[in-house]
């Protein structure tokens, strides 16, 4: 791993003393944290999946049982199929969108870009709830179509797998668009012009030169899209699909904790999901590293080629962007309508307006809000400290094992949230009884979100010229002093966006929290889910969602203000430091 071996390969004449450097002590501390909060619970989970139910023996029984049950095999296959379909849909939707945004000079591009990437900060479940209200069997759209006499019976727009595909595709579209956008705008115009000079024009040039050059970026976005169905358990449940790995994991573990057989089926599906995610990620990483041909072009900051499209193309482009924007905007609009209304059923639009839902939240459910802020805040505090430490170790030092730290942290990016939840639940229940203390909630959030923040901090560090720090050391400052007076103030702008995104993501986290919460620890998303699950009136959940969307949106705007544009902000969240 990197240059860490340098010290070993050529021991300095002054021997072992050089190993006991502050950097190495910090690295050791980081390893302790990583071991305790990542390696221990995750390996506990994997080992536990081999435990013979109700005994202390280990074997392949659970896996054998899983793969001999047609239901589970079906779920396994179906999850893959869902991933494939979602990937296909985001590609088909995202490719033209990214191309339009990157290459055409159109008015209102910034607004459309912002709208396109909005779903990154909208919780997936909020979108799902909103779509049920609008596209559902007796949702606004069906009711309107029937009212107008276009159809006589409701059309099933979203209930079922196709709904899940559509919803997840919209939720993940920003990752795809951002990746492709980066690719399109960073291609050296010379390369395309060279193809043009050689006689390849239009479509042919796009498919033979432009698209192949985008492949590495596309794959980076594609992997995030592909992995999502292995971790999102709630969207499918809202659309009435439960035979998918993450949903099975949730149902089997959360509801059938006492049924040891089912519990282990849940654990096996979590481990399998994680295995798929990690394997897919490592394969991609190896492939991209082998084929690094984007590095060949000198790269440009000019934003690639832009064209003024002809009127027909312009109209089609606008229509397309409006279509995508409408799907996205529908989410906050519908949530708002339901949140401010009462008994909105079987009518296209609400009939009774009220503030009751919000009154209930602020009188009866303040706990949810304060918990959310507390847990996210604590997670953020630990995350910023630790993320900066990790970024420092990886970007600036030759500390032993820093390559390993980076690797583990990167793996956490792709680890399904469900797996982290289950791992924490099992590992910190018997062995180390941390799960009985509320600190487990922020700790789990910290572990899930820290890698994203660390990557941003790392990127910020890479943009910070080491000479600036060295100049301080030469001027007589200690390492700590240098960090506080030089590095930190200069990193601040870069990591501030990371701080906001960390908070937003932690704030809306549910996959992990749902496994770990106990009475009194419910967060906003958990409360939202429980409310829906208990079959309460939707208005209250919608009001909660709406409030989350507003809170998140305000934070995003603050971040955009400081971070120099919505695009920059969203960058960090897609977790691509370099």
């Amino acid at each position, binding site marked *: 791993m990197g240059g860490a071996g340098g010290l070993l390969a050529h021991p300095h004449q002054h021997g072992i003393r050089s190993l006991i450097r502050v950097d190495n002590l910090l690295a050791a501390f980081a390893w302790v944290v990583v071991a305790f909060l990542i390696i221990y619970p995750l390996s506990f989970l994997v080992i536990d999946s081999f435990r013979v139910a109700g005994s202390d023996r280990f074997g392949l029984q659970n896996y054998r049982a899983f793969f001999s049950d047609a239901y589970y095999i079906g779920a396994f296959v179906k999850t893959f199929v869902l991933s494939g379909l979602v990937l296909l849909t985001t590609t088909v939707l995202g490719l033209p969108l990214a191309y339009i945004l990157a290459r055409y000079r159109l008015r209102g591009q910034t607004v459309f870009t912002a709208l396109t990437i909005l779903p990154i900060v909208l919780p997936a479940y909020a979108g799902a709830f909103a779509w049920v209200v609008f596209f559902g069997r007796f949702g606004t759209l069906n009711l309107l179509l029937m009212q107008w006499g276009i159809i006589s019976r409701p059309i099933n727009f979203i209930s079922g797998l196709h709904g899940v595909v559509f919803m997840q595709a919209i939720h993940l579209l920003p990752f795809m668009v951002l990746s492709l956008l980066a690719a399109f705008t960073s291609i050296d115009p010379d390369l395309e012009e060279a193809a043009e000079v050689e006689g390849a024009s239009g479509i042919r040039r796009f498919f033979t030169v432009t698209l192949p050059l985008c492949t590495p970026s596309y794959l980076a976005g594609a992997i995030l899209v592909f992995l999502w169905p292995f971790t999102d358990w709630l969207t499918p449940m809202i659309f009435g699909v439960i035979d998918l790995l993450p949903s099975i994991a949730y149902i089997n573990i959360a509801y059938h904790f006492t049924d040891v057989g089912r519990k282990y089926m849940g654990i096996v599906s979590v481990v399998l999901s994680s295995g798929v995610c990690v394997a897919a990620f490592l394969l991609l990483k190896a492939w991209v590293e082998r084929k690094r041909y984007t590095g060949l072009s000198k790269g440009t900051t000019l934003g690639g080629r832009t064209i003024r499209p002809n009127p027909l193309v312009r109209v089609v482009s606008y229509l397309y962007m409006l279509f995508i924007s409408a799907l996205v905007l529908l989410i906050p609009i519908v949530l708002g309508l339901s949140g401010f209304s009462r008994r909105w059923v079987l009518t296209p639009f609400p009939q009774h307006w009220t503030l009751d839902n919000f009154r209930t939240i602020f009188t009866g459910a303040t706990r949810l809000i304060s918990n959310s802020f507390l847990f996210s805040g604590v997670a953020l505090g630990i995350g910023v400290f630790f993320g900066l430490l990790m970024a420092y170790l990886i970007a600036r030092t030759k500390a032993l094992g820093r390559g390993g730290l980076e690797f583990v942290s990167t793996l956490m990016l792709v680890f399904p949230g469900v797996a982290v939840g289950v791992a924490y639940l099992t590992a910190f229940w018997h062995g180390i009884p941390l799960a009985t203390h509320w600190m487990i909630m922020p700790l789990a959030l910290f572990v899930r979100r820290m890698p994203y923040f660390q990557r941003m901090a790392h990127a910020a560090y890479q943009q910070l*010229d080491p000479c600036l720090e060295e*100049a301080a050391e030469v001027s007589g400052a200690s390492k700590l002093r240098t960090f506080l*007076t030089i590095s930190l103030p200069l990193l601040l702008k870069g990591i501030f966006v990371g701080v906001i995104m960390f908070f937003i993501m932690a704030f809306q986290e549910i996959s992990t929290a749902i496994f770990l919460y106990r009475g009194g620890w419910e967060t906003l998303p958990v409360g939202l889910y429980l409310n829906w699950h208990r079959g309460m009136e939707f208005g209250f959940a919608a009001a909660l969602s709406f409030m989350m969307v507003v809170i998140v949106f305000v934070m995003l705007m603050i971040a955009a203000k400081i971070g120099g544009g919505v695009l920059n902000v969203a960058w960090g969240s897609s977790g691509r430091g370099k």
Partner: protein
Amino acid sequence: MGFIDIRNLVKRFRTKYGEVLAADNVCLEIEKAELITLLGPSGCGKTTTLRCIAGLERPDSGDVLIDGVPMFSQGFVPPAKRGIGMVFQNYAVWPHMTVFANVAYGLKLEGVPRRTREARVREMLDIVGLAGLERRYPGQMSGGQQQRVALARALMRHPKVLLLDEPLSNLDAKLREKMRFEIRGIVSRMGMTAVYVTHDQAEAMVLSDRVAIMDQGKLVQVAKPDEIYHVPASRFVADFIGTTNIVEGQVEEILDDTGLVGLRTGLGRTLCRARNRAAVAKGEPVYLSIRPEDIEVINSTHEARDNIYTGTITERAYLGHLLYLFIRVRDTVIRAQCHPRQVGSEGEETRIYLDPAKCVILPS
């Protein structure tokens, strides 16, 4: 023992393509109040050596002594404790601090009271020609001004040693030349011991008391600028400093009475004055180096001396203030520097004279 004493410094770097010896047993003594430049092509190890003096890099073995105190072997002395000032290639002026805060940084760490600090910073800014710009931020300044801030910051604590890492390479040619003299002046006025890294030979020549030339991690020659130029120690040095003609040859005879050595070269028989006669042996293959400006183009055809050769002009390169003639003698092309009005066009025959005293014999 020098004021700075570099002893057997070895530093290896591991890269994708294997190991690179950035400093290969470098030994160098630098006198007090001396300005020495480390000169060499990029990747020769000059910056690594400088960074070892600063303590920003730790050598694999060897040591650096500053004022008699070992910096590595008896416990690592961190950069902050070495009493050095350093100017970086890209200035490394802190963008979030004003000029005043940048320059006063070290004093503040030393706990110098604010009054004194202000007075001293003002004095220093005066010296580097930035008086009145205390409140500016680096972003509002030109590259040259930023470099002055960096210099002021480095000098502020009256360091024992001033280290400069290609400080002028980011400036444009005119400014670079001006700054050379300014740095020279400030450093010698303050009586500073300075180590200056550059790949620009003109800079090294103008600035230094001594020049240390490095190649592939090794120190190849340390000498005064004129000595480096006129008596290069190796083919590399002769080639790297200025332009020269290198001709392969073999020692044919050693003429004890005149102090001359006769070589058999691609030009024919060439007499050279050997500076160190003991170093050459009969039959030994050597290189002959002679600078273009030391070659005399002879217009008259009936002069008969040793070291006169007849050749054909293959190319004229007119540079305004001088003229290069490329003259082919047998199979060897010699570059001669002439007065811009020198006659002779391409294809014409001409004669050249090589002064034996200006021919340098280099080991092969």
